[in-house]
């Protein structure tokens, strides 16, 4: 596949391609449904052909030819190296520290990459808005070697304060994960449709480290619910290659 830049792509495609690139070099990935699954499957088609995809439905080493709608589509099991019971997945494989990267989405994320997927506050007098809930996220974020996150950038998603803490990223800053006894390194990158945020090594606060082509720092700050800081140098992500976009579009249309 060609490595030359592709002339035309969407913001979502920028997000998906960069999410896939973040999986270069990983051996195993615990894959959430939706954007993380798109990214992980695109990684297998581009930067990491040997990436072992692990789905919480119990499949190890799934090799789907099209994007699964659910985490339990038949093709995930049929193409897997092993299919195991769900309790074993969570106890021996996830808690057992066998998985390099956990790839999560989120409804709300705060500056320390903590996640809310439970309920949202809809204002005075209104009932809480209901989200799907935790799923595997609290233990994925705790036990995987590191965590990648992918979600669209808006002040609705990137909030000053979570309405509920479903899943700990970096807590309230450095040392919190250790205090909580969380074995993994936690979130190392949040890939959005505008750019990439990464925790500042000194403060664990998410800072803007890369912008996608055509996006400005001000656009990202305007889409973030807290006073987003930038890294000393803000890089630029490489535009998607023809190969990446062809693979992505093929996956989605299959």
């Amino acid at each position, binding site marked *: 596949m060609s490595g030359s830049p592709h002339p035309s792509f969407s913001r979502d495609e920028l997000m998906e391609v960069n999410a896939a690139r973040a999986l270069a070099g990983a051996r195993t990935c615990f894959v959430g449904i939706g954007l993380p699954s798109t990214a992980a499957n695109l990684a297998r088609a581009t930067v990491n052909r040997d990436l072992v995809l692990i789905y919480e439905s119990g499949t190890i080493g799934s090799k789907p030819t099209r994007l699964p709608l659910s985490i339990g589509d038949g093709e*995930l099991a049929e193409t897997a190296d092993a299919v195991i019971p769900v309790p074993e997945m969570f106890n021996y494989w996830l808690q057992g520290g066998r998985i390099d990267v956990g790839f999560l989405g989120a409804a709300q994320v705060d500056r320390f990459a903590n996640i809310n997927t439970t309920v949202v506050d809809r204002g005075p007098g209104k009932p809480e808005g209901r989200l*799907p809930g935790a799923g595997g996220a609290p233990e994925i974020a705790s036990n995987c070697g590191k965590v990648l996150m992918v979600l669209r950038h808006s002040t609705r998603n990137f909030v000053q304060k979570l309405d509920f803490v479903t899943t700990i990223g970096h807590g309230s800053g450095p040392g919190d994960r250790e205090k*909580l*006894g969380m074995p993994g390194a936690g979130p190392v990158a949040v890939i959005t449709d505008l750019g990439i945020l990464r925790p500042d090594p000194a403060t664990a606060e998410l800072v803007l480290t890369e912008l996608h082509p055509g996006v400005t720092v001000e656009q990202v700050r305007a889409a973030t619910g807290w006073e987003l800081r930038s890294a000393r140098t803000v890089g630029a992500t490489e535009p998607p290659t023809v190969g990446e976009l062809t693979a992505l579009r093929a996956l989605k249309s299959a």
Partner: protein
Amino acid sequence: MAEIRSLHDAVADLVHDGDTVAMEGFTHLIPYAAAHEVLRQGITDLTLARMTPDVIYDQLIGAGLVKKLIFSWGGNPGVGSLHRFRDAVENDWPRPLELDEHSHAGLANRYVAGASRLPFAVLRGYRGSGLATRTNTVSTVSCPFTGEELAAVAALNPDVTVIHAQQADRSGNVQLWGLTGVQKEAALAADRVLVTVEEIVDELAPRPGGVVLPTWVLDAVALVPGGAHPSYASGYSVRDNDFYQAWDSIARDRDTFTRWIETHIHTHAEGTAVR
């Protein structure tokens, strides 16, 4: 010992008003036909347990049969919200829905403890999560060897577990394969077990990934081909992703939902698959 019975009779005898019922199946082998029989019989005031409530529980919740839900991820996988679940939680329609909410790891281990007939299970989980503050089935325990504090989750022992499997033999031994989720644990944790199957065969041939449940841990087996639709039975059917996508608009509106249940469930005879 499992008797081979009609779905109507098995549900009528095994599932009662007020029961805690687990209908498990992680995307695969979800026992829809049995849930629809519960709907037809109007068995109510149920506490339902399922890791992923899915459309099957959206239907039961929307029909007003459920007072409490034990779960860990309540969405329409790959599609979006479960609108009947949300409407019940947010607006108490058609009745209030009490929640006992967990992470997947925690709820899976609640079934493990249940199957092991232990009062609790231990995991390194829920750390820093607000979930533990909203339920009385998560606590902590200290390791007597290292002093480390770990999460403890209370055993979940349903009154009835209902699952769907590919095959049973004539003695009521059951085999399922493919993604088998937490079905073995949910079945062994329960007081009563009902299994619907695609097929009854003379002899169960051992399958790769096969989970066998002997007849003497089951109460009833009902032959219901297609009984997992719109989920699927590996080797027999494929997941009806179109139905899952269509459900979004069916369930979004109370009246549309109610008409759908009336048309597709109540006017159907027992065991007829909903297509």
